[in-house]
C-alpha cells in the first residue's frame, strides 16, 4: 500500500477544469517532483491533498492516505491528518506566516492542538526544532515576529512548523520561488537534511530543482498528467511532447553557445552613478554606489543581482525616473538631464523600458491600439498611425484581432508583447528590460527572448537586461554586470563570466543555480547567510561576511574596481582566486 494514492482526481471550478483524471502515488520516504507551468493544476493538487481547496471547487475521485480515503472527509478528520500525517510548506513565507503573532506562539499551538507535548515541554521542543532548521539564536527568535526575520529565515520557520508534527508526507508548494538563488540552494538543502524518513512531494515550475532533488517526477499540463517516471529517465528520454518542450525551453547555465562580444561604439554610458533614497528614520538608503557601465549598439548587457542589489534603481536612474545623486548618464556622447521630464522628447523616445508585470504596465482603460499608438501621438502628431501600429504588432507576433482588446483580456505573454510593441514603436536605440520575463512561463519566456533577439539583429538595438536568473543571462547576453548591495562586483563578457568567474560572489551565484539535468552538478549552497541589509551594509568589502575567501584586508578596506584580463572586478584577491568553473 502506498503512503499516498491519488486516484482519478478531478477538480473543477464551474466549467473550468483545473485538474482532470489525475492518478499517482507517493511511497514512504521518497521524494517526488510535481512539475508544470502556471495553470497546470499542480498547486490545486497540493491543496486538495490537505483538504484546503475553496468551497467553490467541485472535486471527485479519491485521495487515499495509507489506504484510507480522505477526500471529502469532515474537517475534524482532516484536522487530525493535517500536520500529524501530511504537512505543507507554502510559497511565500512573508504571506504564509501570521505577522501579528510571535513565531514561537504559532509553533507552540501546533504541538498543543495535536496533544504532542504539554507544559514546559512545548517550548523546549519548539526551540529544539528552530535550532534544527538553522535558527542560530533560537531562544531569542522564539519571540520574534515574522517581519523581523529575513525571507530565508521565515522559510526555515515554515519548515520547522511543518516538521513539528513529524508527518509522513511533506508537501512543498514552490518553497523557494520567492527567495534569492543563493538562499534557494540553502533551503533546498535544509529540506533534504531534516526530513529524515518523511516523504517529499515537491511542487515547482523549475526543472532544475526537480533534477537535483527528486527521485521521481510527474509532469502536468493543463490539469492532466502527461509523463511520469524516474527523474533521470524523464530527463534523458522525455516521451511526451510537452515534457520535451519544457526541457528544451529551460535555459541551461552549463551549456549552450554564448554570444561573442560586440565591437561597436558605446551608445549609453553610466558613469559613477549613485542613487539614494531618504528612508524614514534611517537616513539615506544608498541603493547604488560608484557604478559605471556602458552598452554598445547591438549589444545586450545583463545586470544580475539578488534582491536589494540595486539593479532596478540603476536603470531607473539611467531613464531619469529616479534622480542620480552623483554621476552622469551619457547617450550618444552627450550627457542627459537628470530627470525624464527635463529631457527632450526625441531623446526620451530613444530610451525605452519594458516592465516585469506585463498587465500592470498597460493602462486598463485603453485598448491595445491606443496603448501602442500613444508615443506616436506625441512625436509625430497628424501622421497616419494605423499602419505603423499594425506593422509593429505584426512584428511582435500579434494579429489584428488584438487591436480592440483591453489589457485584462490578454494573457501575460500577450500583454508583454503589447508592452514591447509600445516600447519599440518609436524605434528606440536602447531598450531596458526590468525582469521582463520573470513573470512568464518557460515556453512563453523563450518566445519573448527570441523576439528580443530578432529585433536586436534587425535594428541594432542595445538592450540592458535586468534579471535575477543567471540561466536566462547566459542565453541572451553579450556581457554581464554582477551587482551586490548597490556596487559592482564583476563586469565581464559572458564567455569569461560563465567559464572563469573571478569574484567569489559570482562563483557562488553560478554554483547555486540549479541545472535542469540530473547528471549535471548544480544548485549547491556554497554561500551561507543572506545579503545583509542595504541600510547598514558591512564595512570593508560588503561581501566579506559571507565570503569563504575573506582575509583581514577584506574586513577593513573596500576593494576598488580594477581590470584583470578584460574583466572589471572588485575583489582584493581577484588574481589568486581565478579557478575554472
Amino acid at each position, binding site marked *: 500500500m502506498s503512503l499516498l494514492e491519488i486516484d482519478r482526481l478531478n477538480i473543477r471550478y464551474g466549467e473550468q477544469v483545473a485538474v482532470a483524471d489525475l492518478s499517482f502515488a507517493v511511497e514512504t520516504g521518497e521524494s517526488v517532483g510535481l512539475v508544470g507551468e502556471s495553470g497546470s493544476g499542480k498547486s490545486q493538487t497540493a491543496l486538495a491533498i490537505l483538504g*484546503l481547496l475553496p468551497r467553490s471547487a467541485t472535486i471527485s475521485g479519491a485521495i487515499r492516505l495509507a489506504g484510507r480515503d480522505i477526500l471529502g472527509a469532515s*474537517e475534524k478528520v482532516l484536522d487530525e491528518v493535517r500536520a500529524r500525517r501530511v504537512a505543507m510548506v507554502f510559497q511565500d513565507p512573508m504571506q504564509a506566516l501570521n505577522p*501579528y*503573532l510571535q513565531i514561537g506562539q*504559532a509553533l507552540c499551538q501546533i504541538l498543543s*492542538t495535536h496533544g504532542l507535548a504539554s507544559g514546559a515541554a512545548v517550548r523546549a521542543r519548539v526551540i529544539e526544532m528552530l535550532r534544527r532548521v538553522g535558527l542560530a539564536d533560537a531562544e531569542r527568535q522564539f519571540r520574534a515576529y515574522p517581519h523581523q526575520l529575513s525571507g530565508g529565515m521565515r522559510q526555515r520557520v515554515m519548515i520547522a512548523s511543518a516538521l513539528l508534527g513529524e508527518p509522513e508526507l511533506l508537501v512543498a508548494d514552490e518553497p523557494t520561488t520567492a527567495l534569492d538563488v543563493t538562499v534557494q540552494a540553502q533551503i533546498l538543502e535544509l529540506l533534504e537534511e531534516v526530513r529524515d524518513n518523511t516523504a517529499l512531494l515537491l511542487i515547482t515550475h523549475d526543472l532544475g530543482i526537480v533534477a537535483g532533488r527528486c527521485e521521481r517526477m510527474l509532469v502536468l499540463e493543463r490539469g492532466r498528467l502527461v509523463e511520469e517516471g524516474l527523474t533521470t529517465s524523464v530527463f534523458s528520454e522525455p516521451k511526451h511532447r510537452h515534457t520535451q518542450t519544457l526541457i528544451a525551453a529551460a535555459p541551461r547555465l552549463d551549456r549552450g553557445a554564448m554570444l561573442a562580444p560586440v565591437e561597436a561604439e558605446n551608445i549609453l554610458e553610466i558613469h559613477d552613478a549613485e542613487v539614494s533614497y531618504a528612508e524614514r528614520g534611517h537616513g539615506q538608503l544608498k541603493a547604488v554606489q560608484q557604478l559605471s557601465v556602458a552598452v554598445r549598439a547591438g549589444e545586450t548587457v545583463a545586470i544580475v543581482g539578488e534582491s536589494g542589489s540595486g539593479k532596478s534603481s540603476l536603470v531607473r536612474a539611467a531613464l531619469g525616473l529616479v534622480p542620480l545623486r552623483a554621476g552622469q548618464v551619457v547617450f550618444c556622447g552627450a550627457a542627459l538631464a537628470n530627470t525624464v521630464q527635463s529631457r527632450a522628447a526625441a531623446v526620451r523616445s530613444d530610451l525605452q523600458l519594458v516592465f516585469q508585470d506585463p498587465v500592470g504596465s498597460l493602462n486598463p482603460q485603453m485598448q491595445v491600439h491606443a496603448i501602442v499608438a500613444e508615443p506616436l501621438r506625441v512625436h509625430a502628431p497628424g501622421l497616419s498611425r494605423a499602419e505603423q501600429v499594425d506593422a509593429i504588432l505584426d512584428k511582435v507576433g500579434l494579429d489584428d484581432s488584438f487591436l480592440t482588446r483591453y489589457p485584462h483580456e490578454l494573457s501575460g505573454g500577450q500583454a508583454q508583447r503589447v508592452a514591447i510593441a509600445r516600447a519599440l514603436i518609436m524605434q528606440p536605440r536602447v531598450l531596458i528590460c526590468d525582469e521582463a520575463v520573470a513573470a512568464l512561463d518557460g515556453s512563453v519566456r523563450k518566445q519573448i527572448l527570441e523576439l528580443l533577439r530578432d529585433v536586436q539583429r534587425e535594428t541594432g538595438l542595445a538592450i540592458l537586461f535586468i534579471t535575477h536568473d543567471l540561466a536566462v543571462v547566459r542565453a541572451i547576453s553579450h556581457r554581464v554586470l554582477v551587482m551586490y548591495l548597490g556596487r559592482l562586483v564583476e563586469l565581464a563578457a559572458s564567455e569569461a563570466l560563465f567559464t572563469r568567474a573571478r569574484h567569489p560572489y559570482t562563483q557562488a551565484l553560478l554554483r547555486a543555480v540549479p541545472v535542469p539535468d540530473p547528471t549535471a552538478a548544480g544548485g549547491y549552497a556554497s554561500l551561507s547567510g543572506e545579503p545583509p541589509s542595504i541600510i547598514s551594509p558591512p564595512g570593508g568589502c560588503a561581501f566579506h561576511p559571507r565570503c569563504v575567501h575573506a582575509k583581514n584586508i577584506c574586513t577593513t578596506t573596500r576593494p576598488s574596481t580594477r581590470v584583470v584580463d578584460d574583466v572589471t572586478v572588485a575583489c582584493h584577491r581577484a588574481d589568486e582566486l581565478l579557478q575554472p568553473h
Partner: protein
Amino acid sequence: MLRYALLRLLGAIPTLLLVIVLAFLMVHAAPGGPFDDERVLPPEIEANIAAAYQLDQPLPQQFLQYISGLLRGDLGPSYRYRDLTVSDLIGSAFPLSLKLGAMAMLLAMLVGVGVGTFAALRQNSLLDRALMTLAMTGIAIPVFVLAPVLVLLLAVHLHWLPAGWSGTTGGGRFILPVVSLALPQIAHIARLTRASMIDVLASDFVRTARAQGLGTRTIVRLHALKPAMLPVLSYMGPAIAAILTGSVVVEEIFGIPGLGQHFVRGALNRDYTLVLGIVVFYATLVILLNLIVDLLYGVIDPRIRQR
C-alpha cells in the same frame, strides 16, 4: 512607543486649538447679541451686562481671557442659567451622558464583533445575507428615526418599557436609549468585522494555520481575531463621534438630563457660552479618545510598535 505617544499628544494640541478658535470666532461673529430677543433694556444696564460678560473688550482680548480661563478649567458663566458656570453645568450633566455612551459603545462592540464574526464564518449563507441586510438597514436608519419608532412600538403600544426618563427609576429606563444609540453602531461594526474577518480568513497565513490542523475556533482566536480587529479599531474614532452626536438626539427624545440636552437647549436659546463650552469639551474628549485608539493600534500590530 512612549515617545510616539508623547509626540501624538503634542500633535493633538494644534487640532484642539483650531477647534477653539473656530468655535470662538463663530460665536462672536454671530449677528446679534445674546440678549437681543429680551425686552429692551436701558443702555446703561446693557453696558453693565456687557461688562459683566466682558463683551465690551476687543475680540483678541476676549479670546485670551477665554483661553486662560480654559487652562484653569473655567469655561465662563452661562448666559441663561445666571447662577451657574458652564463648568458646573457640564460637571453635573456629563456623568449621565458618559454612562449612556459607555454602555452603548460596549454593547456595540460586543454584539457587533460577535455578529460580524458569526456571519463571516458562514459567508454567503442565507443567515449571513439576512444579517447583513439587517445591518445595512441599521446603518441607513438615523438614530432620530429609530428611537421614536422604538418608543412608539415598545413603550406606547406594547408597554414593555418606559417611554421617558423622568418619573421612572431603575435600570429599565436605560434600555431604550442605550439600544437606540448602539443599534447603528452594532450594524456598522458587524459589517466591518465581517468584511475584515473574511479577508483575514482568506489570507495565506490562515491557510497555513488550517494546514496545521488547528481547527476553526483556535484559528479565529489565535490567528484571525487580532488582524480582523484593525479596521474595527480605526472605526472607533467615528463611532465615538457618532455616539456623541446620537446622544444629543436620544437625550432630547427621551428627556434625559444629560449634556446633549443642555447642548440642544443651549443652541435653541442662544446660550452662547454654554454651547461654546460644550463644543470645546466634546472636541477635547473626541481628540483624546482618538489618540487612545491610535495608540491601541501599536498594541495589536507589532510592526507599528517598533516605531
